[in-house]
């Protein structure tokens, strides 16, 4: 790199000198031009010679050599040097830009652990994560990356999951807790029992996925590859015809004028701007997405995402949290606090999810001395004596059985009716809760070109419909068994327009057939769920639906960049070719159409990496 820069600078100085200072003998100027040309173009000449012996006549080095030597031949010394000089500057810039984006993408994914402190023979050893076996004990100190998946056997700490999820939400890790590789240990020292080899650990799975992403090519990339295959030979053939035919057909035409035009054609014949900037845009887009905690498995999926018109959601765990929570407390003649307390005390010895959610809502220490007696009434509820009070907690049947008059609650969810001392005291409603950002996401998706939002659920009709209405979905299908979901998605796939895509969003746990069936399968909550990472095309590491919106915005942005580059590059090249053929353009413009367009397209492509303004 350094050597190339020095060569370019020396050649540039010689070039400018020869243009500014005019010697009486023009051959002194020309000699300086040739010297400058050799300094900057030697490598190209060497490659060109080598390639042409291998029969690669459409090689860009060869074409540049022909164009410049031809220009020397017709006496256009300054042009000849300039073409080579700017071509080299363009190449230099290109490799700089590519290197830079390579680095910034790999620094986004700077989660690869360099070593592991493994505990062997009562000693701590620093080894490569590859060498650690399942069942061994490793030590992770503050500031270090967790090198392998495992669970904590000693110590406690806070972990930073930013590298995996895109969010710096600290996560507590204590004894018995599972810890994923790729997290950064913030404060405490922990000892882990390794549960997975490095190759199977979260960190290497994620790295593999993103690094292989750009090998699944998008339609735009395939188009460019095909275009490049045709473009260069076509331009070269036209150049050849341009040099031979007009001077033969039209009398009094100067051969050198047409040769000059033909040589300018050769300068524009490289499709470099497109060939590099399009994959670079996708590469940047995928890199930018992983910075937000969104893993995209291929450029094709990033492209398809911009064309989604039907978005199908699974309900539980996707739009809703999938955990039961106390939603409503209605107390009659006693305080809400008291009602919740008595219920929590009554449910104290039960491990049912419903009981757990009540204890969680109560949130205070339970003084077991106050629980005099509890008795489970199968199919009805619990009867208890709490602090000298008779308490009944259960369903409608329980109230009817005990002849307690109560007012029925018609809300959706599980309802616990409570009676104290034989008198109705109110109810507690427990239901699965929508995620905070679900409603907003559905609304925003509509604004971003999604025509239809659909929810599928195995839940009861009343529950499903009430959630769908609350969140503002267009359609909901309820009481579906897993194969029913497959059938619905098949129907929706048939119903959508030909160009539009269908995306399915699920949690990846038992919906892999649907994830595979949809044009794009998106799995949420990928962190720690290997099955989701494997089954889906796009993995959202956290469980926020709003990330889907971000992914769509990013894909649209990337596609705009791609289109801008395609249209801009092809337009400028064709325009310059036409003007050149008509004699209205010079070789200087040809250099711009080649190098200038490349540089502009690359700078534009690098924008795909920037995700700060995607909200």
């Amino acid at each position, binding site marked *: 790199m350094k050597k190339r820069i020095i060569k370019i600078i020396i050649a540039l100085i010689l070039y400018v000198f020869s243009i500014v200072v005019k010697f009486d003998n023009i051959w002194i100027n020309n000699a300086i031009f040739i010297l400058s040309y050799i300094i900057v173009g030697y490598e190209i000449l060497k490659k060109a010679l*080598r390639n042409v012996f*291998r029969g690669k006549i459409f090689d*860009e080095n060869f074409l540049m050599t022909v164009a410049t030597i031809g220009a020397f031949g017709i006496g256009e010394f300054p042009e000849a040097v300039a073409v080579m000089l700017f071509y080299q500057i363009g*190449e230099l810039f*290109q*490799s700089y830009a*590519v290197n830079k*984006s*390579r680095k910034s*993408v790999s620094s986004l994914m700077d989660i690869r652990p360099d070593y592991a402190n493994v505990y062997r023979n009562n000693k701590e050893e620093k080894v490569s994560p590859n060498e650690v076996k399942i069942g061994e004990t490793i030590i992770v100190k503050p500031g270090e990356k967790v090198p392998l998946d495992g669970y904590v056997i000693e110590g406690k700490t806070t972990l930073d999951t930013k590298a995996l999820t895109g969010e710096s939400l600290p996560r507590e890790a204590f004894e018995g807790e599972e810890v994923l590789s790729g997290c950064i240990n913030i404060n405490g020292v922990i000892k882990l029992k390794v549960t997975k080899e490095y190759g199977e650990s979260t960190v290497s799975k994620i790295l593999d996925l993103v*690094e*292989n992403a*750009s*090998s699944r090519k998008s339609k735009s990339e395939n188009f460019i*590859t095909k275009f*490049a295959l045709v473009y260069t030979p076509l331009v070269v053939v036209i150049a050849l015809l341009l040099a031979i035919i007009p001077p033969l057909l039209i009398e009094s035409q100067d051969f050198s004028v047409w040769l000059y035009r033909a040589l300018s054609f050769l300068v524009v014949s490289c*499709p*470099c701007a497109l*060939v*590099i900037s399009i*994959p*670079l845009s996708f*590469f940047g887009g995928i890199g930018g997405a992983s910075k937000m905690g969104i893993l995209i498995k291929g450029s094709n999926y990033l492209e398809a995402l911009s064309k989604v018109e039907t978005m199908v959601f699974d309900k539980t765990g996707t739009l809703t949290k999938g955990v039961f929570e106390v939603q409503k407390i209605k107390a009659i003649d006693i305080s809400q606090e008291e009602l919740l307390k008595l219920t929590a005390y009554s449910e104290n010895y039960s491990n049912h999810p419903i009981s757990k959610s009540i204890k969680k809502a109560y949130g205070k220490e339970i003084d077991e001395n106050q629980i005099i007696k509890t008795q489970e009434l199968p199919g009805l509820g619990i009867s208890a004596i709490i602090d000298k009070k008779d308490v009944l907690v259960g369903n409608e049947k329980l109230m009817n059985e005990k002849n307690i008059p109560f007012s029925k609650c018609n809300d959706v969810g599980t309802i616990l009716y409570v009676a104290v001392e034989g008198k109705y005291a109110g109810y507690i409603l427990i239901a699965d809760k929508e995620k905070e950002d679900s409603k907003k996401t559905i609304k925003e998706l509509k604004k971003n070109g999604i025509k239809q939002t659909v929810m599928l659920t195995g839940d009861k009709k009343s529950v499903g419909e009430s959630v769908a209405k609350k969140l503002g979905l267009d359609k909901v299908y309820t009481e579906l068994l897993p194969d029913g979901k497959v059938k619905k998605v098949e129907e929706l796939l048939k119903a959508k327009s030909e160009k539009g895509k269908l995306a399915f969003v699920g949690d990846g746990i038992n919906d892999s057939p649907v994830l595979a069936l949809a044009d794009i399968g998106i799995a949420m909550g990928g962190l720690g769920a290997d099955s989701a990472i494997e089954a889906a095309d796009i993995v959202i590491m956290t469980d926020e639906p709003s990330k889907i919106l971000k992914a769509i915005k990013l894909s649209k942005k990337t596609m705009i960049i791609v289109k801008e580059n395609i249209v801009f590059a092809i337009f400028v090249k064709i325009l310059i070719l036409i003007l050149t053929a008509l004699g209205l353009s010079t070789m200087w413009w040809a250099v711009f159409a080649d190098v200038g367009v490349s540089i502009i397209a690359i700078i534009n492509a690098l924008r795909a990496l920037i995700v700060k303004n995607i909200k």
Partner: protein
Amino acid sequence: MNSKFRINGLDCANCASELERAIRKIDGVISVNINFLTQKMDIEYAENNKEEIIEKVKKVIKRQEPDVTIEKI
């Protein structure tokens, strides 16, 4: 059988796709993918006489792009 290589010294994306086409023609190579941006080559090839196939791949690279070096990862 699948192998991954780091591929150094490729000049341009176009060269990468040309090289890809040349390698794909080798007997025994099932699929090949050269990623210009990540500088990686993924080759899938027949299990039997795998060493011979890799030798051929190296030869094709030497012929097409003499400045390119590969190393197995």
